[in-house]
């Protein structure tokens, strides 16, 4: 093997290694659908790189992995509702509603 061919080969090898080490995350949209029942799907090779912390596997609950589906419920509220005096009643109603739902789901 000539010196130039060897040089080319090593250049090719080093470039490939650098590319593999410094691969960039692709631009992907986070797929979170929808409220009731909530269905979170974490997909994609670089799912753990999305977001600062929230999608890091370190912060996932125990027994959950990337690409798992989780069912649940999501309730929306405004800051004004949080700051109102009626909030305590609303929270009680919310928990009652959630308990009812859970019972219904268990029965069905």
């Amino acid at each position, binding site marked *: 093997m000539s010196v130039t061919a060897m040089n080319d080969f090593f250049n090719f090898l080093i470039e490939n290694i650098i590319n593999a080490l410094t691969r*960039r*995350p*692709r*631009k*992907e*949209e*986070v797929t*979170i659908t*929808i*409220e*009731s*029942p*909530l269905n*979170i799907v974490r997909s994609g090779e*670089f799912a753990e*790189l*999305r*977001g*600062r*912390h*929230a999608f890091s596997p370190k*912060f996932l*609950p125990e027994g959950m992995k990337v690409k798992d589906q*989780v*069912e*649940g*419920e*999501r*309730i*929306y*509220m*405004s*800051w*004004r*509702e*949080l*700051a*109102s*005096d009626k*909030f*305590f009643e609303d*929270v009680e109603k*919310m*928990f009652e509603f*959630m308990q009812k739902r*859970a019972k219904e789901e268990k029965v069905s």
Partner: protein
Amino acid sequence: MRLQYRPTCPRCDELIELLMEVSARTGVQFIPEMVGAELETHAVFDEVRKTYSESWIKNFGTDKQKKLYEKAKPLFMHLEESSTVPVLILEWDADGKKRQLVIKGFLKEGFETAIKNLIYVISEITKRSYG
């Protein structure tokens, strides 16, 4: 407890400081999460943004929201493109299912009662999920 914020939002900074204090008092983990795709190589949107879309309002909206949507469709279309910050998300497990409470916006007026209410909710959640 997560807070979705943008670096250019002064209200978010105030809320982050308050929530740090709440986190220190209650022992609940607090994670600030930056949203908006301008500075990132990947797109991350806030969780409230889609609630202004037609499909969401038709599926999950209240009657009042549905009426409002018919009246002010162009406004909602504009809102759908913009992002809402700050968005506070309380996340907990109940019977193996994920429950989320999403609180959008922040007002300095009456924030003391709001923080008290927030601590009350956190205590209720921990009581119900562990007790």
